[in-house]
């Protein structure tokens, strides 16, 4: 179970990126997870939701796209002013 660490890395990157867009609220985080990445999407979502609770990212949702190899990529952020 290392999805908690992965979720922390996702949040770190999202925060760094969001800092470039002052005043914007992150609503969606796009991820690509390969079936050989060793990361479970449901478990990652659970950890992400636990970590963003009562933070500025609370309303952000993870949009996870399946992939065929060992991908573990952040693909996009959606933000609202």
């Amino acid at each position, binding site marked *: 179970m290392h999805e908690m660490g992965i979720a922390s890395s996702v949040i770190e990157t999202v925060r760094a990126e969001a800092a470039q867009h002052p005043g914007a609220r992150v609503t969606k985080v796009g991820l690509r997870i390969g079936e050989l990445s*060793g990361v479970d999407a449901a478990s990652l979502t659970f950890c992400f939701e636990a970590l963003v609770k009562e933070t500025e990212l609370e309303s952000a949702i993870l949009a996870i796209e399946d992939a065929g190899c060992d991908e573990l990529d952040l693909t996009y952020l959606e933000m609202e002013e």
Partner: protein
Amino acid sequence: MERVPLERKVLSENDRIAAGLRERFAERGILALNFISSPGSGKTMLLERTLGAFPAGKRVAVLTGDIQTDNDAQRLAKYGFPVRQISTGGACHLDARMIERGLEGWDLDQIDLLFIENVGNLVCPTSYDLGERAKVVVLSVTEGEDKPLKYPGIFHKAELMILNKIDLLPYVPFKIELARECANRVHPGMEIIEVSCTTGAGLDVWQGWLEHRRGH
């Protein structure tokens, strides 16, 4: 709504540190290997047998990871080579930063071969690049032949599979051909070496692989 494309690896910070380690190893011609298996498949015993066969003065060092205890470091230190325990304090895998810290104070110019024994776990260590030249997965005949199918990530990424405990084959229903077939489905052409760390069978083939791999 604004969509900002990112296209970066989630573990980019770990990958950045791992790339730095890989460069340090490459500059010195160090062969760094990352050993991954489930708990109890015999990683530490394999390293004990490997260290035990080296002549004194062999330029080898070991970092060994566990969640708790320094039992493995104590076992491995008996052979007279530098050994350090990395206690992850709960984490189920080693990451590149732990390796960077683990190497602190060691003169890498004095090392040709670095063994990194990961935490016993077939899933989590797979995601974390440690700057190694190759991952080595250890499977033992007391496990299921279909482990490669159940944990495809590590069997896909490993360059070599060591099939350990073959001395137990007469007592367990393990079918080597089936295990090879499962490994091949996930990683066609992966090298497989059969060994017994108890009897020493196959260890010469493993040592040959190490020597060969050091040169490349």
